């Protein structure tokens, strides 16, 4: 197993700190989910981990060796990002086949047959210019590059953004198939959390340029609860725990709790339910949580 590690990453643009002392460890052979709000720093973090952007401070290594400008490290990585349909000079007139051709030239393990198969599956006309593609086709092209790169560590940034539900399900199937067959590492950043949550062995949550959590998804959710009931009862039952997003309706109160370890029992007079990853994320990032002492 290899580790792609980012230690103490700081990224600032002028006075603005986009990433504030971020440390992550990616173990190969797993599917990771990277979730965070818009502007949280997901894309910046991924660009820095893959040496596409320089960090202001911090060390990025793969198996202990630096990634920056390092051929060996770079050959194991593919970061397929959103393709822009406009350039500084006008519409992006690059044809899909040229885009894929560039990928073929640079990714060491590019699988052309697989790429052709996927092009057919997604029904892409490769002679089309990027500026003329629909959102769905645009997403499809980034997915094709990611999958056909056959890179050990493959990163997809918002891969399902333009896809309708049928295409999304198709995408998840492709990832599962590929992962089952090859055990490649996938890091998927997404907004559509709940659909993909069951895919993620580990989840990384980033908010405001800081990593809030990076854990095994199941273990993480096993210690998250939605506690509801009469306001006083809920407060008493959840004393000492980390609370997020308390909501009240009349005398009924609901809070999301994240414990340090799974809780056997809270109290008799409150109702306890598990929380989905999406709801947990929502509760944590919607900015009205308080931390318990």
């Amino acid at each position, binding site marked *: 197993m290899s580790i792609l590690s980012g230690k103490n990453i700081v990224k600032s643009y002028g006075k603005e700190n986009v990433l504030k002392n971020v440390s992550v460890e990616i173990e190969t052979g797993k599917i990771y989910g990277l979730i965070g709000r818009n502007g949280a720093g997901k894309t910046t973090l991924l660009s820095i981990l893959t040496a*596409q952007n320089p960090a202001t401070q911090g060390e990025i290594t793969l198996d202990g060796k630096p990634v920056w400008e390092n051929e060996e490290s770079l050959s194991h990585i593919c970061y397929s990002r959103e393709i822009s349909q406009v350039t500084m000079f006008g519409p992006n007139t690059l044809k899909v086949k040229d885009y894929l051709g560039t990928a073929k030239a640079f990714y060491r393990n590019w699988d052309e047959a697989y790429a052709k198969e996927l092009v057919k599956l997604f029904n892409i006309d490769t002679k089309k210019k990027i500026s003329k593609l629909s959102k769905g086709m645009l997403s499809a092209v980034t997915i094709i590059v990611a999958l056909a790169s056959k890179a050990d560590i493959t990163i997809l940034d918002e891969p399902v953004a333009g896809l309708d539900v049928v295409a999304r399900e198709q995408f998840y199937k492709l990832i599962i198939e590929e992962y089952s067959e090859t055990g490649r590492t996938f890091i998927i950043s997404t907004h559509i959390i709940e659909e993909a949550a069951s895919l993620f062995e580990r989840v990384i949550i980033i908010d405001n340029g800081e990593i809030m959590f990076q854990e095994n998804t199941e273990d993480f959710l096993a210690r998250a609860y939605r506690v509801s009931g009469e306001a006083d009862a809920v407060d008493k039952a959840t004393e000492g725990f980390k609370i997020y997003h308390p909501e009240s309706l009349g005398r009924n109160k609901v809070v999301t709790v994240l414990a340090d370890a799974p809780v056997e029992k809270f109290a008799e007079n409150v109702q306890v339910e598990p929380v989905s990853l999406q709801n947990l994320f929502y509760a944590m990032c919607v900015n009205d949580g308080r931390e318990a002492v």
Partner: protein
Amino acid sequence: MSELSKRAAKYYFIQGIKLVMVSLLVLIFGGVMWTFFSMGEANAFEHVLNMIFSFGTLFMIMLNFLYSMYSPAWYDSLVLSMGARRKDVFFGELLKQITFIIGTVLIYIILAVSLHRPEHIITILTCSIISLLMGAVGLIVGHKIKKYGRVVYIIFVFVNAALFATIGIRQADGKTLIDAHADSRYVIVSAALLLFAILEFVVYRINKKAMVV
């Protein structure tokens, strides 16, 4: 040479060849167009040839400049996002431009020799050096556009328009683009080469910290 370097070199070489094709197309198109326009004029053939060699070589300069300008924010950024190193991009760009220039120069020299007009060869060679220089300038401009946005691009569109107008006026006066007299030639070429070396160094420095757009 490392495996990645080889692949990058091959890629950029092919891009250079594609640009040579563009040059060829411009040449053919220009030739046809000027022939058409000079039909029936006295000395039509002379005129057309002059046009081809002066504008053609001008295009060599312009094309290299333009493509270089487009590269940092577009093509090079793309390549960088697909696992190339910055040094692969730097050397690749040089390879692409040199391939383009040599390819285009060969086409024009062959044309000049086969049409028994060896006097144009000097112009061709001088323009090739200037083209090289303008390639480096283009890269720097391209990086500035990448950093500061479209504004820089618009400024240069205007500058280009002005340049074209000036040349157009000179053409109308019957002069070729560059009066390649014996003495000034050497000065121009030496200055251009020196400037080229300096600018490539600047490009190398900027490129080192390049980000994917």
